[in-house]
């Protein structure tokens, strides 16, 4: 038993990991102590763990995403430390492989997506004049299954060893023959559990946006961020089932000995690559389209103008979404599928640049004849444009299959996708968070600190990734744990850039604390002279969002309300509001998913079955749950609104 614990169960022998174990234990003790000392267990359970309020769920998503950004960022810094100089003995090859795998997986699945889904959760119902999402209970299941999936994945670090086959987890390298042990199982089950949540989110927001808009808000009157969320939800709903199936098949391969993707028998390892990217390419647009939506909102607000070419913006997003399902082969042009196939996918991939280019020029057009203010959210959006264009044009270069044979698997590719994912998604998340921050927490983030973190991050980002294009031309392959001496100068530059980015991130996080302590509290709900309906609510937003839902007569609902008069608190027409009840079932059910997942990771079938029974029991409990929510009385609404609107007078 001891032997198993020390040799297989716990990861031993590495000072970095001992350090991590000690800090995990210390932080856990500290959290338990603080919660107990301040008697906050009940508060935590009532207000957060059982909540079905889309705003609180959104905030929890964002907090989790920032924590994951920290973890993924530490991975990145460790990688840069190892790659700065040749012959570095900081990380051995196995450890390096685990770190780049967790870096990629965490950043995409547990950072980028939850960050954007968190913003969607908070903002979309407010933008369409709804009081919650269509399925609030399911929304809580989504969040908790994501949280427990992320926890399971992160656990691999100290228990059993982290996955080490890259975030793409290609077969046969990740199959049962070449990679026995629990590590890859963590990847498969962590993603599977959180993937269930994501799929549910896709369905939830699709229905919410299609069915719960305020009266008069036609599709073409929706705010552009809502449009981007709707299209994203469609992509999620169509793409995620592919991942679910692929993960399930490989799990069966590894745990029950089937031969779908195996090296042996008649397994087809290349089918994994196809299925993975059939999901994986749309996934890229799942994390970029909401960011596009954020930039559109921010640029229009701070240029103080209507969005230029609203219709073209919507249509180009629809086109991008459609094309995103038709380009997956460009991730493996070098597989030798033949000239015809490669030519076709080269052209479809390049075509994506057309609607994307239209969007870039429309953002520029939005600034034309505007009156541009340079607050922090706008800085992130302006930084996005040139940085993303560099990522975009190198994407077109990669799309040219014949040339891709030279770029593939090199640092040219690494530079490209960081250029689009950081400049697009991460800048978008930061822009969105600083933009909607006052609506979430009742105060702005400090402008000065915001600008410092922006400049550190943006300059660091370019210093870090531009040299990598040249490293690609020099023949440096991605995922190598050691560099050749001739690659050293550019790698040193790149590491300097990474340090600048880390400083930018630290300042950003410090800004959250600083603003909480010192920022002036918001007096009105309309911090930035906004244009969409979320700014029509008071700050903080009451749990029912809108006392009365306004009639929408055109695009930019709130802008119009400000000109023509109109309110979300029509005193004479108040009616009791129907709201959903909180529930602990989503949390408990997801905890059982975690138990089942952990059992499957270690192939302990008793634990796995116990977990599955728990999940089923939760479903039964939910099925016989006749609680249809409660009504907020007119008196309570009046009281809440009068108090919230004191500042406006």
């Amino acid at each position, binding site marked *: 038993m001891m032997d198993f614990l020390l040799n297989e169960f716990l990861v031993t022998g590495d000072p970095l990991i001992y350090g991590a174990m000690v800090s995990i234990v210390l932080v856990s003790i500290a959290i338990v102590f603080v919660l107990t000392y301040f008697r906050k267990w009940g508060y935590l359970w009532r207000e957060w763990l059982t909540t079905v309020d889309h705003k609180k769920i959104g905030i929890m998503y964002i907090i989790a995403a920032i924590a994951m950004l920290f973890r993924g960022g530490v991975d990145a810094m460790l990688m840069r430390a190892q790659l700065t100089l040749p012959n570095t003995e900081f990380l051995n*090859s196995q450890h390096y492989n685990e770190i780049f795998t967790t870096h990629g997986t965490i950043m995409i699945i547990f950072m980028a997506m939850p960050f954007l889904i968190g913003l969607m959760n908070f903002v979309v119902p407010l933008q369409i004049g709804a009081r919650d999402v269509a399925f609030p209970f399911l929304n809580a299941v989504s969040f908790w299954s994501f949280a427990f999936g992320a926890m399971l994945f992160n656990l691999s670090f100290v228990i059993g060893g982290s996955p080490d086959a890259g975030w793409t987890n290609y077969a046969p390298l990740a199959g049962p023959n070449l990679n026995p042990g629990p590590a890859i199982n963590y990847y498969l089950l962590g993603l599977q559990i959180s993937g269930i949540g994501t799929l549910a989110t896709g369905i939830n927001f699709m229905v919410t946006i299609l069915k719960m808009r305020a009266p008069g808000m036609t599709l073409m009157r929706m705010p552009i961020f809502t449009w981007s969320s709707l299209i994203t939800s469609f992509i999620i709903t169509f793409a995620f089932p592919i991942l679910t199936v692929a993960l399930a098949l490989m799990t069966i391969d590894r745990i029950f000995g089937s031969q779908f993707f195996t*090296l042996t028998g008649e397994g087809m390892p290349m089918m994994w690559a196809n299925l993975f990217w059939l999901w994986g390419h749309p996934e890229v647009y799942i994390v970029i389209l909401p960011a596009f939506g954020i930039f559109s909102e921010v640029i229009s607000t701070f240029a103080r103008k209507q969005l230029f070419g609203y219709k073209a913006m919507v249509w180009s997003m629809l086109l991008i979404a459609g094309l995103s399902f038709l380009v997956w082969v460009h991730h493996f042009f070098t597989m030798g599928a033949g000239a015809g196939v490669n030519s076709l996918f080269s052209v479809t991939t*390049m075509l994506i640049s057309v609607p994307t280019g*239209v969007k870039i020029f429309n953002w520029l057009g939005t600034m034309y004849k505007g009156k541009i203010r340079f607050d922090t959210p706008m800085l992130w959006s302006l930084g996005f*444009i040139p940085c993303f264009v560099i990522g975009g044009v190198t994407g077109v270069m990669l799309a040219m299959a014949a040339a891709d*044979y030279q770029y593939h698997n090199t640092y040219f590719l690494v530079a490209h996708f960081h250029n689009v994912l950081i400049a697009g998604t991460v800048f978008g998340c930061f822009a969105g968070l600083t933009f909607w921050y006052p609506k979430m927490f009742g105060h702005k983030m400090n402008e000065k600190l915001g600008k410092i973190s922006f400049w550190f991050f943006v300059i660091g980002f370019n210093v870090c990734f531009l040299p990598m294009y040249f490293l690609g031309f020099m*023949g440096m392959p991605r995922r190598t744990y050691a560099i050749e001496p001739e690659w050293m100068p550019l790698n040193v530059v790149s590491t300097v850039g990474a340090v600048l980015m880390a400083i930018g991130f630290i300042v950003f996080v410090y800004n959250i604390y600083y603003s909480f302590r010192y920022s002036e509290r918001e007096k009105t709900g309309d911090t930035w002279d906004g244009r969409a309906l979320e700014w029509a609510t008071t700050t903080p937003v009451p749990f029912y969002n809108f006392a009365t839902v306004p009639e929408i007569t055109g695009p930019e609902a709130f802008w119009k309300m400000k000109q023509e008069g109109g309110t979300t608190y029509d005193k004479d027409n108040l009616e009791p509001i129907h709201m959903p009840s909180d529930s602990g079932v989503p949390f408990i059910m997801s905890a059982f998913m975690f138990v089942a997942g952990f059992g499957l990771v270690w192939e302990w079938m008793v634990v796995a079955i116990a977990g599955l029974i728990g999940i089923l029991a939760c479903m039964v409990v939910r099925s016989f749950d006749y609680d249809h929510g409660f009504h907020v009385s007119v008196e309570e609404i009046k009281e809440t609104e009068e108090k919230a609107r004191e500042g406006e007078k």
Partner: protein
Amino acid sequence: MKNKWGKYSFLLAAAFLLILTAGCSGMPVLDPKGPVGESQKNLIVFSIVLMLIIVLTVMVVLTYMLVKFRERPGRGDKDYDPEHEGNTKLEIIWTVIPLIIVTALSIPTVITIYQLEEPPQSSSDKEPLVVHATSADWKWFFSYPEQNIETVNYLHIPTDRAIEFKLSSADSMGSFWVPALGGQKYTMANMRTTLYLQADEAGTYKGRNSNFTGTAFAEQTFDVHAESTEEFQSWVEETQQSAPPLSQDRYDELLAPGLLQEMEFSSTHLQYVDHGKMGSGDYLINRHQDKFEDLPALEGGEDVAND
């Protein structure tokens, strides 16, 4: 104020150029030694030029917007039009121009894709030399069926003659890449892919597996010695005479996951197993499955093959 910024940006540009020239010295992709790499380089340079035009256009327009339309003291509402919401003519222009650019890039791309599926034109008077390149964790086997010799982790090729690489893998998926000669292609178990390369200049070029294959991936490299036909011929004869034959036991032993030094043999492994055929994936697993339970890690970029 303006001057200060000018000075800074000048310093920045100078530093950037310095780094660039320091880095540019060894870029095999942009300094190819054969027709395949050459056609790819031409495509790359062509696209870089077009792309730089796009990047510059966006930067210029962005700068213009920010300078002209920023809120500044004394501007008031001059040139401010909050109702301005689009311009169909402009939107058509910036849809059509990218379409033209995409077309301009697609045509040479498709032509080159088709060309690369055939041996290079410049040596069409000679039959290509067939070399089987097989990757295994973490080494390369090069089999010359016509010459009946096999090498490990290095190979010799004649210049000015197309080489037809028949690629496959004994285990994980690798990618055969010699940047100085041209682009890569995957090596996969149970199947075969073909890649044509050619060297026009004699020299030693670095080759590697570029597709991640696990713990010793970084050292899964090989050297390509390109030399004149006569020199190549004499190397072949010498290997045929002085190298030992490759027995099946020896081959099985070499297949075990790990790093190998350079070796040569006067027969090939193709007589025992063809990794390019369906069902051959079991060959290595039947012999070495247990060794994947506990793989060693490398440290500090050690180059075991050359120790």
